Every structure is written in structure tokens, then in C-alpha cells.
């Protein structure tokens, strides 16, 4: 357990006013340094689980530990350890990339000098230097995604949560983002990632879990799973486990 980035035990959660539990006694361990992919059909509970792991949603029973810290009890300390890249462009589109990064850097607890240094590095790596002072609302979807990612990693997080970080971007931007995430992982950052881009997941993740109807139905390294199910790709594995029928359920607001 000491080597786990995330350790979930007997997690129970339901949205207020809903009788059905999203999770009942869910258990999951994610080792430090893993590139972990969480997959499942729409409404299976991927985003809800990620919001529980990041402290955005309060669970009713069980525990979630992030690098050994129970997040329900040490929220402020835990929040310094991870970064979060939401699916939406959760940033200020009226501001420039630099202004956004300055603000979110300060809120991450960084000092002015460290923020400036990190901003220069991120703009360079994510190819945003030329547009660093332009308002984000004038950017293309791909550029906004890169700013969204930069904000998530401004504080050099030990664990990085990514909720569909490449949705709606072109191949070049996807390639750049995936390469950058691999580089972060090589430097020790644990990645916890959800996406519907299974080919991308195959390229990025070394371990995957499939969630359906609030339950983890498989959780292992990609090679082992493919061998066990006699599939040659993640897409085939996914369909063989979840079936071909539509899986959408009613979307519940997360507030």
C-alpha cells in the first residue's frame, strides 16, 4: 500500500436524491509511476470515480488514500500532491495562457519566481510561446487543450488525473500531448487517465481498468489482459467485455 499512488477501499457513493449507488464497496489500487487508464461506457462511473479521487465529490463510506493520505481528512495536503485536467476547458478564456498559469500557479501554493520559471518551461514544451499573451478564447480547440493541460501540471504534481485530455483535437496535437504525458511519467508522475480513444490508450497506458455499472470488471496490465482474452487490441477487448449494445445511461449532474 505504501507504494500506491491511489488506494481505494470499500468505496460507496451515491448522488444526493438518488436511491441507486454509483459505487458499492469498490476497491482499486494504482501503483506509483503507473500510466493507468480507466475505461468504460458512457455513464459507467469513470468521471464520478475521478471526482471522488480528486475530492470533488464526498463519498458516503470507505476510504480513498492518495500517496498514503486519506483525502477526506487531509484535503489541503492532498490537493498539493496531484494535478487535474478536466474534460471541459476549466480556465479563464478572457485571459492569456500566461495570466491563467500565473493565477492557477498561485492557487497551487507556488511562489512567484517558481511560477515564472515553470510557465516558461510549459509554454516551450507545449508550443504556446508565440501565443502566450493572447486571450484564450481566440484559440483553436487544440491550443485550448494544451493550455488546459499546462494548468493541470503547473505545480509538478506527483499524481495527474486526466479526464479525456485529447477530446476534439487533431492528430498532431494528440501526438504532442501523449508525448508530453509520457515524458511526465518518465519523470515520476503517476497518470490516471480516462478516454474513449482506445488506440491512444493503448499507446499511453501500461495498466488499465474497465468500469461498468459502478464496478471494476477488469484491472491488469494491457499485455496480460490481451493474452487472457485472446484479443489483439484494446478495442476488441473492450467490445468483448462490454457488448455491442448502446450503453448510455442518464447523465447525473455533478453539481
Amino acid at each position, binding site marked *: 500500500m505504501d507504494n500506491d499512488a491511489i488506494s481505494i477501499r470499500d468505496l460507496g457513493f451515491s448522488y444526493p436524491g438518488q436511491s441507486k449507488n454509483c459505487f458499492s464497496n469498490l476497491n482499486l489500487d494504482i501503483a506509483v509511476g503507473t500510466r493507468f487508464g480507466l475505461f468504460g461506457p458512457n455513464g459507467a462511473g469513470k468521471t464520478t470515480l475521478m471526482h471522488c479521487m*480528486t*475530492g*470533488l*465529490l*464526498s463519498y458516503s463510506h470507505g476510504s480513498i488514500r492518495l500517496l498514503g493520505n486519506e483525502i477526506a481528512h487531509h484535503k*489541503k*495536503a492532498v*490537493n*498539493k500532491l*496531484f494535478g*487535474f485536467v*478536466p474534460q*471541459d*476547458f*476549466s*480556465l*479563464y*478564456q*478572457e*485571459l492569456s495562457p500566461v*495570466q491563467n498559469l*500565473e*493565477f*492557477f500557479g*498561485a*492557487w*497551487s*501554493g507556488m*511562489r*512567484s519566481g517558481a511560477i515564472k520559471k515553470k510557465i516558461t518551461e510549459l509554454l516551450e514544451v507545449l508550443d504556446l510561446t508565440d501565443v502566450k499573451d493572447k*486571450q484564450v478564447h481566440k484559440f483553436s480547440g487544440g491550443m485550448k487543450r494544451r493550455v488546459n493541460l499546462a*494548468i493541470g501540471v503547473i505545480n509538478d504534481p506527483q499524481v495527474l488525473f486526466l479526464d479525456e485530455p485529447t477530446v476534439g483535437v487533431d492528430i498532431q496535437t494528440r501526438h504532442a500531448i501523449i508525448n508530453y504525458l509520457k515524458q511526465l511519467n518518465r519523470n515520476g508522475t503517476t497518470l490516471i487517465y480516462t478516454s474513449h480513444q482506445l488506440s491512444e490508450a493503448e499507446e499511453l497506458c501500461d495498466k488499465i481498468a474497465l468500469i461498468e455499472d459502478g464496478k471494476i470488471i477488469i484491472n491488469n496490465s494491457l499485455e496480460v489482459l490481451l493474452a487472457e482474452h485472446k484479443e489483439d487490441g484494446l478495442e476488441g477487448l473492450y467490445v468483448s467485455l462490454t457488448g455491442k449494445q448502446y450503453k448510455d445511461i442518464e447523465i447525473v449532474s*455533478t*453539481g
Partner: protein
Amino acid sequence: MYKLRATIKKDLRILSRDKMGVLFMFVMPIILAIVITAIQNSTFELVNDNKVSLLLNNHDTGEASKELIKSIEKIGMFNLTLVKGKQMDAQVIERMNNKDALLAIIIPANFSSKMAAKAKNIAGKALNNFGAPVDGVNVKADADSIEPITLYYHPVLQESFRASINGALRSSLQLVESKQILQTLYFSLNETALPDSLEKDIINTNVAINQVPVSRDGTRVTPNATQHNIPAWTIFAMFFIVISLGSSIVREKLNGSFMRLKTLPTNYLIALLSKQITYLSVTLLQAAVIFAIGVLLFPLLGLPKLNLPSDIAGLFIVSLACGWCAVSFAICIGVFAQTQEQANGIGAVSIVLLAAIGGIMVPSFAMPASFKIAMNLSPLHWCLEAFYGLFLEAGKLKDVLINILPLFVITVVIQLLSLWGLKRKNLI
């Protein structure tokens, strides 16, 4: 402090890019203040400086009617035109319809002789009471049949204004009548005419009426349209920041920034504090700009100059209290609104309603009793009372604390409501 500074910087940057919001916050109230003051000022001048046109058709040829006309001229309210040739009433009305005059007075024929008869009758009665038999009572029948003076008025004249005209005419009639009685009485006793000097001593009152506007510090500044309008529209402007601040909060909720901030090791109350400091500064700037316009620009536009209260520190604190309440209200709207359209719509309509029941648009004394209860719930009412205490009554801060206290209570209630809303929506 670094986090707070960074957040204030972020809020100021976002605000500076909200051109429409800035337009609503500064330009709209300035235009309102100028236009409404100009309109009210012209009405004020119409009533106070201009004379009302009056046609006078005298069917009488005697002295009493001439005396009455002289007395009416002395009132000073009227621009008097005597109708020549003793026209028919219908012709006079026709002239009024043609906007020649707003008023017309018709003095009936035999007015003077009937007035003299009445005077003789009353004088006779008085002498009888003193025990001196006189034959004055015999003219009673004549005295009772004085035909009324007719006053035609244009319907545009308000009732209160007509009442004051009526009062002035009655005073003139009373004067003429009193003179007649006095002269008759004097002649009956002395068989000589009443000397002019004695008549003046008896008739003219020497008791002057000294008109003084009420003020707490004893100054003699007469309130005008500017003194009323500038504070009122300043408050309106402060509360209209709901358009910018309310929708800014909704935007942050909808685009996920709120959610992202929750994953960072900083309390969201820093963000709320930053918004309060930023927008409170904006409300104080609004007040300073509008007051400066009242002092510097209004005289150049031919409008009365704004006289600032002597207690500038008090003015600052009242502005601060009003601004804080306005910011709290805008945050509350932002917290509960689901969309920007809701925030703008509910925000704007609620401010107009609170302004209306708070006495910004209609004076509070003119409201029905049932509205006066609602008025006390409007924060704009307490803001207005506090500003009027300083601007119109020349009061000090201690004089308006009684208005600031309920404003403070309302502000705290709104703040608590916002915190409850944020908690309920899992935003803090």
C-alpha cells in the same frame, strides 16, 4: 496574501475585458443621472420660476373688482391678461383651448355693488352689537346674492397647484372684502373716509414668514434636483454591477473553473474575498465618478451643482456600506443563477424592483402604506436614506448610523445566503 493578490489581479483583468459590464456600471448611471436631473430641474423651474398665464374677464365696473385685480397682480404667480370688450365665457374658454392661458377668472357683473352691500350689512350688524342702531341690516337680501367668481383651469394643472391658486385668490377676495367692511364701519362711526395710512396699518400684516430649509448643521443650501438625483442614481449604479459580477460567477461555475479551484490547496473563500475587494473598489470608483460629474460637469450643462456633504469621511463610509451590500447582492445572484441569461435577467429586474420599492424612482412618502413594509426590506432604501441624510439634511455619519445598521444586517443575511448556496451546490 500572495494568493489574494493574484486573485484580485485575475478578477481585475477579467473585469477590464468585460466592456458591456463596464458600460452598464459607469455610462448608464451617468446618462440616467444627467437626463433625469435635467427633466426634474426643468419641472422645478417651471413651477418655481415661471408665471402661470391667466386671462381675466371683468364684467363689473366698480371699485371692488379693480381692487381685486390689483390684489391678484400682487400675488406674483400670474402673467395676467385682461380680456378686453367683456367677452362671453365661451370665448374665454376657446382662448384657453388655444393655449393662450392655463387659467381664466370671470368677475361677475355688479360684483362691486354686491360687495359694498355685504360690507354695509356686516358693518350694520357690528354696530347693532355695539348698541348703535343702524339701517345696514336692511341690505341683507342684496348681500346674500353675490354671484361667485368663476375660475376656469386647464386640466394639465395638478390638483395641488390648483389648490395653491385657489388659496391665493381667496386671500385676495378676503382682502377686498375686509377693506370694504372696514371702510363702511369707519364711515358709519366717523362720517369721514378711512385714512389710507390707517387702512394700511390695519390691513397689512407686518409678520414676515421666514422660509428655511431644514438641515442638521444649520447650512442654508436649498435641496434641488441634483441633490436628489445624484445619490439615488449612484446607488442604482452600484447595484447594477450585478450584470458584470453575477454573470462572471455563473461563467466560472459553468466553464468548470470553480470545480478546478476546488482541487487546489486554496480555500474558495479567497476567491469570494477577492471578488468583494475588486468589485467594492469598482462601486467606490462609480460613486467618485458620479459625484465628480455632479460637482464639475453639471454646472457646465446648466444643471444645479452637487453640494458635497461636509462629512466626507461619513460619505466614504456610507458609500462603502452601500457598495458592500451591492457586491453581496450580485454574488448571491451569481451563486443561485443557473445561466448567464438568468443572472442578467433576474439581476436587472430585481434591482429595478428594489429601486422602485426603495424610493429611488418614486419618493417613499408617496408610496401606499402596504409598500412601506416592503420598502424596509429593500437595501436600496437604506442606502438612499443614508445618502439623503448626508446630502439633503447635511447630517454627519452619526446621524445616518440608524440607516447603515439595517443595511449591514441585510448585507450579512445576503452573504450567509450565498455561502449556504455555495455549500448546497457543493461549490465550497
